[in-house]
């Protein structure tokens, strides 16, 4: 892990000093435990702040499109499997040009779900979490405990199908195994297992703590619409209140807009301040896309996204 971080710092410093890129987007160590954050290095000195850890839960591809155009030129970006797949998606959707991005590929160690760690110490304050090999060392005021990382990874990391980047300009470490052995189809769309009559309650129960901050949307590299449907005022598609119907509309439609595009990076769930399992929506949609079109987003720069084309043999059982 530290070797990868060192390689990222060295490479970033080199790219910046040689003028090959104007900015390197990576992660830096956060001010609170388990929250390393997106960091923009513009000079070789700033590149020394870059890090790599199991606490890098944001999807950096987000920052390739959320910057005012022309503000920066060519950028290098640290990308693990899911982030690289998002980059592929953005290239295919003509949001960025391949030649404008220099991809520093990293094999993903699987990211830690800070809530799972916190849940081990209910109501206690965690003051420091460090990585020691395969374990985390969690410290609080009156405790210190080791937890194996594999017990507290984010849900999406267990079922990741591509930990290694799919497109790369330079690798920052050896490629690792592509998955953890988890089967996404076995755990995707958890409410399918419920009776139809029980699903609505499960759905509302999941989203009833939503505060409509839209962090899930804003953390997502797919959500780059200039005006999001929830911000449309004429007509106002989605009400602004905490009424169940308004909150439900937001969650259903946000997920629906990601259909055939979501790489299951988990940035939405990591961003949610309320711990809502928003992947319960997107995992259902992507499972349908795999079943109907045998397609996983972002795996291949050449593949055609199924929802952007018409084929005579497209499934149409839903049409009468």
């Amino acid at each position: 892990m530290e070797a990868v971080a060192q390689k990222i710092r060295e490479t970033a410093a080199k790219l910046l000093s040689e003028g090959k890129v104007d900015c390197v987007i990576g992660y830096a160590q956060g001010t609170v435990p388990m929250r390393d954050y997106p960091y923009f290095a513009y000079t070789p000195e700033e590149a020394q702040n870059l890090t790599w850890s199991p606490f890098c839960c944001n999807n950096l591809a987000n920052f390739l499109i959320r910057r005012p155009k022309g503000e920066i030129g060519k950028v290098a970006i640290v990308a693990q499997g899911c982030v690289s797949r998002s980059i592929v998606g953005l290239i295919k959707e003509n949001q960025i040009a391949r030649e404008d991005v220099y991809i520093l590929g990293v094999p993903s160690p699987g990211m830690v779900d800070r809530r799972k760690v916190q849940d081990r110490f209910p109501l206690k304050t965690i003051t420091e979490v460090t990585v020691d090999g395969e374990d985390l060392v969690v410290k609080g005021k009156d405790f210190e405990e080791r937890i194996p990382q594999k017990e507290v990874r984010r849900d999406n990391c267990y079922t990741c199908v591509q930990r290694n980047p799919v497109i790369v300009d330079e690798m920052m470490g050896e490629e690792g195994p592509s998955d953890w052995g988890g089967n996404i189809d076995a755990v995707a769309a958890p409410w399918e297992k419920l009776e139809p009559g029980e699903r609505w309650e499960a759905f509302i129960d999941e989203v009833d703590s939503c505060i409509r901050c839209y962090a899930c949307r804003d953390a997502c590299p797919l959500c780059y619409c200039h005006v999001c449907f929830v911000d449309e005022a004429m007509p106002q598609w989605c009400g602004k209140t905490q009424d169940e119907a308004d909150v439900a509309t937001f969650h259903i439609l946000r997920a629906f807009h990601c259909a055939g595009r979501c790489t299951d990076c988990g940035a939405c769930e990591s961003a949610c301040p309320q711990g809502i399992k928003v992947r319960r929506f997107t995992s259902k949609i992507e499972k349908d896309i795999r079943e109907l079109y045998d397609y996983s987003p972002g795996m291949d720069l050449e593949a055609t996204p199924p929802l952007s084309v018409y084929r005579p043999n497209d499934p149409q059982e839903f049409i009468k």
Partner: protein
Amino acid sequence: MKSLLEYVGIEPGRLHFSWISSAEATKFQETVVEVTESVKALGPAKHMIKDIRKVA
């Protein structure tokens, strides 16, 4: 969309898709009957209802 709505608990049979040409009057009539019967059978919608009237 249909699949997603059913996944979150909207009853199957509330959302219908049909492909009807402007020349297919009979199919249109039949579909409308089928849709209304299917929705009537389900009764009033229970979910995604925003009733802002004062609760008496």
